[in-house]
């Protein structure tokens, strides 16, 4: 079964090429149908592969092809299906299928409907190929490809200036991280002579990484940090997080698929995939954990005050990715991945539900919604399931994974990080229910928008329901119910049969974090559902923290001023130097030449007799010199 894993990414590629051939005028039904069916087949295949890998954990899972020779070294391509990869395949294909279905309704009557599906198929292909990459080089290739698809899809409505800017920003900001990752991969290649994970990990285990100018430990820490830079960019972690909220300018299904469930999780996947490398360096793991914790807290604080429904969820995504990073940083390998999986389901759900709302009321401003529960019951209750999962309320999916992470953080001896996570959990519960109450309960704030609000067709409702089911039950995949099956499945990738921290069940901790979540929901309810005290008053009372949160800690302003502004100033200086100094010197030389030429041209007066007189005079001088030389005077 595993040898057919290449089919999983290949089918979306087939769909992409097919749609490309069909062109820009193809019928919507055909386009969406082909995409959904092929991706669904991929999903079924993934399930089989998932099972096959689990049944035969030590079987051959690697397939290699020759790509390029450099000197005496060979770059290979191919694919490899580890347990982690198999899980990712299932998650990505499932969410993709549902998003494809949803988009049929959401993008209905868009001018470029077929193009949208082309890009999405290309993305799904790249993402799946990334997941089963044989080595770091191949991973980097598809890593950039998904970035490209994200760029294309964020800028899908290219005529909107904000979308154009957001697309550019998303590409460039992630490119900064990617450049670090590129360097990390190159250095690993220099140190081990290979891009292969297995070669690198065995070199790490034996401590034989060595570059002429750097020792083993230096190589490990440096490359781990450089690779982490790529993950920071892709997973929108502090300080490269600024692109993700802006990327919400793309169509909402894109946000659900790329900017919630799959591509942004690739950063987490990357750190997990190179886990042994990170484990070998305390500096690297500490960095990962702290960056994750800071992002989790910061993003959840920003999400408290945002008015745009998609941006709240975007910051939520960022925050949850921070949790996953923190988990990997403290060594809770399995729980980071577990959370990645559950998060993919409930966050895709939240985005799609938000998309359903936006589709209905044609606004993204929370304060123009309200009372939609009556008009859109399916959306309301599926959103609620997602919100409960995100808030970590038992027994929804998020509860199990988030609680595992928090417990692992505390049990591995990181109390400060634990509190970071807990505060973030409180904020999370608050902001997502703020969204829920503002959108679905109370009275409509803008009447005419409420009037034409309606539930979407079945293509939009079905994905919501399916995802809601997963958001409810996915937590049980790694729970006492199945003896922590997912954990054991993921650990099979490691020769030792385990990796990092394994959580000991602690009902007290579980109850505590649920209580924190409930507290957040309660506060949200008191402010926005049954206003005991007005949210307005509170935000006025806390005006300074409110503004800081609302303006996103001023990151955009600072970056625009310092980095973009600085770059532009340097560019302007270089341009000035180029035009007026370097080219100025060139012009000066040519000016000097032309001045001399102008001066000498006046000797050319056209009078033959002048010329001859000068010539005669010259001859006289020569004669004089000759005579005096011979005569011994000179």
């Amino acid at each position: 079964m595993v040898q057919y894993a290449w089919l999983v990414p290949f089918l979306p590629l087939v769909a992409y090429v097919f749609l490309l051939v069909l062109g820009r005028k193809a019928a919507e039904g055909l386009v969406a149908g082909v995409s959904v069916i092929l991706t669904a087949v991929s999903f079924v295949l993934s399930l089989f592969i998932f099972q096959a890998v689990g049944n035969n954990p030590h079987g051959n899972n690697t397939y290699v092809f020759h790509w390029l020779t450099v000197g005496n070294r060979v770059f290979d391509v191919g694919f490899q299906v580890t347990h982690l990869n198999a899980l990712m395949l299932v998650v990505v294909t499932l969410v993709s299928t549902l998003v494809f279905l949803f988009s049929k309704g959401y993008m209905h009557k868009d001018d470029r409907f077929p193009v949208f599906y082309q890009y999405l198929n290309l993305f799904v292909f790249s993402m799946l190929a990334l997941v089963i990459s044989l080595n770091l080089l191949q991973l980097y290739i598809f890593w950039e490809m998904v970035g490209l698809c994200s760029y294309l899809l964020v800028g899908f409505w290219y005529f909107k200036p904000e979308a154009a800017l957001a697309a550019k920003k998303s590409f460039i900001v992630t490119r900064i991280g990617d450049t670090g990752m590129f360097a990390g991969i190159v250095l690993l290649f220099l140190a081990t002579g290979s891009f292969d994970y297995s070669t690198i990990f065995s070199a790490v285990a034996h401590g034989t990484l060595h570059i002429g100018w750097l020792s083993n430990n230096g190589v490990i820490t440096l490359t781990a940090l450089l690779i982490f830079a790529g993950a920071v960019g892709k997973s929108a972690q502090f300080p490269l997080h600024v692109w993700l909220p802006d990327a919400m300018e793309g169509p909402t299904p894109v946000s659900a698929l790329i900017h919630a469930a799959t591509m942004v999780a690739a950063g987490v996947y990357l750190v997990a995939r190179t886990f042994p490398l990170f484990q070998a360096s305390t500096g690297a793991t500490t960095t990962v954990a702290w960056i994750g914790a800071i992002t989790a807290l910061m993003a959840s604080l920003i999400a408290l005050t945002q008015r745009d429904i998609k941006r709240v969820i975007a910051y939520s995504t960022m925050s949850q990715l921070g949790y996953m990073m923190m988990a990997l940083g403290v060594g809770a390998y399995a729980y980071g991945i577990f959370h990645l999986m559950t998060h993919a389901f409930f966050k895709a759900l939240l985005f799609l539900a938000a998309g359903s709302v936006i589709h209905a009321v044609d606004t993204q401003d929370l304060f123009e919604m309200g009372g939609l529960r009556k008009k859109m019951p399916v959306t309301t209750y599926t959103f609620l399931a997602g919100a409960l999962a995100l808030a970590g309320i038992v027994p929804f999916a998020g509860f199990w994974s988030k609680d595992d992470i928090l417990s692992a953080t505390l049990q591995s001896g990181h109390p400060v990080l634990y509190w970071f996570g807990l505060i973030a959990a409180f904020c999370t519960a608050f902001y997502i229910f703020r969204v829920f109450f503002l959108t679905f309960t109370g009275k409509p704030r803008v009447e005419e928008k409420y009037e034409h609000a309606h539930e979407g067709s079945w293509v939009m409702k079905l994905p919501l329901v399916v995802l809601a089911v997963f958001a409810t039950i996915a937590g049980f995949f790694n729970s006492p119910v199945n003896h922590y099956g997912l954990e054991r499945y993921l650990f099979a990738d490691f020769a030792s049969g385990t990796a990092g921290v394994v959580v000991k069940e602690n009902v007290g901790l579980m109850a505590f974090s649920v209580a924190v979540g409930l507290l957040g929901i309660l506060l949200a309810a008191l402010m926005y559902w049954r206003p005991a005290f007005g949210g307005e008053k509170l935000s006025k009372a806390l005006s300074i923290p409110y503004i800081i949160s609302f303006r996103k800690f001023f990151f955009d302003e600072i970056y625009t001023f310092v980095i973009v502004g600085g770059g532009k100033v340097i560019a302007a200086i270089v341009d000035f130097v180029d035009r007026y100094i370097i080219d100025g010197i060139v012009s000066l030389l040519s000016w000097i030449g032309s001045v001399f030429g102008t001066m000498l041209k006046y000797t050319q007066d056209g009078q033959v007799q002048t010329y001859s007189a000068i010539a005669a005079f010259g001859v006289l001088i020569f004669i004089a010199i000759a005579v005096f030389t011979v005569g011994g005077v000179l």
Partner: protein
Amino acid sequence: MGAAPFPVPTGSLLALGALLFCIGLFGALTKRNLIIVLVSIELMLNAANINLVTFSRLGVAPSLSGQVFSLFTMTVAAAEIAVGLALLLALFRLRKTSEVKDLNIHKW
């Protein structure tokens, strides 16, 4: 060839040549009319001829080659003056002038 019955001193001959050359040079550089310039050039050529003839007397083995060479010079000078006068005529027809200073189309 033996010594001439009334040998003119070499110095006198060379002085004559130099004088003629300077007169010719002066004329060629200063005269306005092209014809006079041409005549002056002839003077310079003749000065050279005198020198050639003079020097042909001297040397370890005096010979006639200098005198023969001066005949060549005269021939070439004749050809040159013919071409020169033809050019002058053509120019005069074209520009209605034979003044040297008017022929300055190569001025900057």
